[in-house]
């Protein structure tokens, strides 16, 4: 039983990271209507920036996180301005390829800037603590709490403010958004900024429990794709729930089904769901 709860806890930790990444992806999906493959690279860059701030400038972890969020948000906006805003949003394939091009570039850039070796992010929260007989590190606890905090914040922003609602509106009708006076450029930039910031936050939270290296984004991005499909493309609650479901399915699956085929779980889950419900779990009834 203790094993079960320990694994639930482990699953929640990974699920938090998945959720944060999937959230950004699903937000940007609303604008691009294509999964943004470069999102994983933003995640990676976020971790590197935080690490650099911490090691090269000797700043505190939280300052590193903050600066990473800001810089990656900016980077994400630059990406939107230079590339995505110039592509026809009705044509998905060029957008996809452009995002792959950006992914190549950012990965290579990271290798150039920070080297290709694995690096470790050491935080002040490395201690282990026992909680009701379960083992957690402070960092993991931090991931859990911070993720929930960020999600609540985002939820409030999207539902309680007009600016947030504009993001949702734009994902449903671009021209409609124009006609009510939404500054599409600004909203689109804002969306990318939030998505980038979330990716950087997720990366900086997760990096201390793993490592920092140029291809680290690949670990989470595929899973995030699966999540936004399972949770419904463009759906915010879907991304959150989907992330936790997947995190949990993996840790419990590794325990009770097969450790070797753990990374299969996400994809088998997806294939099964789509086989039965070709439009995803949360398909909308409207035409």
């Amino acid at each position: 039983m203790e094993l079960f709860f320990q694994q639930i806890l482990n699953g929640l930790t990974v699920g938090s990271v998945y959720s944060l990444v999937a959230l950004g992806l699903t937000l940007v999906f609303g604008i691009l209507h294509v999964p943004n493959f470069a999102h994983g690279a933003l995640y990676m860059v976020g971790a590197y920036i935080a690490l650099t701030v911490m090691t090269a400038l000797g700043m505190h972890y939280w300052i590193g996180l903050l600066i990473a969020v800001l810089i990656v948000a900016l980077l994400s906006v630059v990406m939107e301005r230079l590339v995505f805003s110039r592509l026809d949003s009705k044509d998905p394939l060029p957008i996809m390829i452009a995002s792959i091009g950006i992914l190549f570039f950012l990965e290579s850039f990271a290798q150039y800037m920070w080297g290709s070796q694995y690096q470790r992010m050491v935080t002040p929260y490395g201690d282990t603590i026992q909680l009701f007989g379960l083992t957690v590190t402070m960092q993991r606890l931090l991931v859990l709490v911070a993720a929930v905090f960020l999600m609540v914040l985002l939820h409030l922003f999207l539902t309680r403010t007009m600016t947030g609602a504009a993001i949702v509106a734009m994902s449903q009708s671009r021209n409609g958004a124009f006609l009510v006076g939404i500054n599409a450029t600004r909203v689109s930039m804002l969306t990318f900024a939030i998505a980038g910031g979330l990716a950087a936050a997720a990366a900086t939270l997760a990096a201390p429990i793993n490592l920092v290296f140029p291809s680290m984004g690949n670990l989470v991005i595929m899973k995030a794709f699966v999540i936004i499909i399972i949770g419904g493309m463009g759906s915010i609650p879907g991304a959150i729930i989907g992330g936790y479901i997947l995190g949990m399915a993996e840790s419990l699956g590794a325990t009770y089904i097969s450790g070797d085929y753990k990374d299969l779980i996400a994809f088998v889950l997806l294939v099964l769901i789509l086989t039965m419900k070709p439009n995803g779990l949360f398909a909308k009834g409207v035409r």
Partner: protein
Amino acid sequence: MLVLKDLTVFHGPERVLQSINLTVEAGELVVLLGANGAGKSTLFHTVSGLVKPAEGQLHFNGKSLIGKSPAQVVAGGVVQCAEGRMLFSQMTVQDNLKMGAYSYKRNKKAIATQLDYVYELFPDLVQKRNASAGSLSGGQQQMVAIGRALMSKPKLLLLDEPSLGLAPLIVEQMFSIIKEVNKEGVTVLLAEQNAYAALSISTRGYVLENGRLSVEGTKEDLLENEEIRKAYIGA
């Protein structure tokens, strides 16, 4: 109020509008007639800043609208209710309406007042306020679209074929609402196929043919014009 001078617009190599001269005075309800593809929607899109004109001038209350973004045009008080409605289909009716108030989004009180006004105009929408816009029938969606445009507190309202695909009964209601809105001080430029009904509530009208304005005149002039009767009213 709205002045178009020698306005010319291209779609790619094709000239869709040619040297359009058109004015709308404050408080008027002006109708724009024209066959399919004559360029009515293009004209509206140009005024709204969605399409850039190649030549000519475009003034609203003395200020040029050329080069303004759609958002700036809306903020200036020129609001369009476009063909095809363009609702946020998965948002609720209420949220759709609220989005209409985007240009003054910080003023919560003004939003609430305006919302009340719109619900007064369209009592049918009150009970549907929490339904998603996509689930409404065509007529109700059209009401939401007009309501959303009114939420922007327009000085000038551009209505592009509001009766399209609506049942006769609803069309009737729609026109009386447009008339009412106009009476309350909103200037309206209305593009319509339903020429008779539109002209009946209008003050003046223009006829657009192949991208050029061919006829202009008062409601009476146009209603009595034989050619217009034949082409746009039928029978």
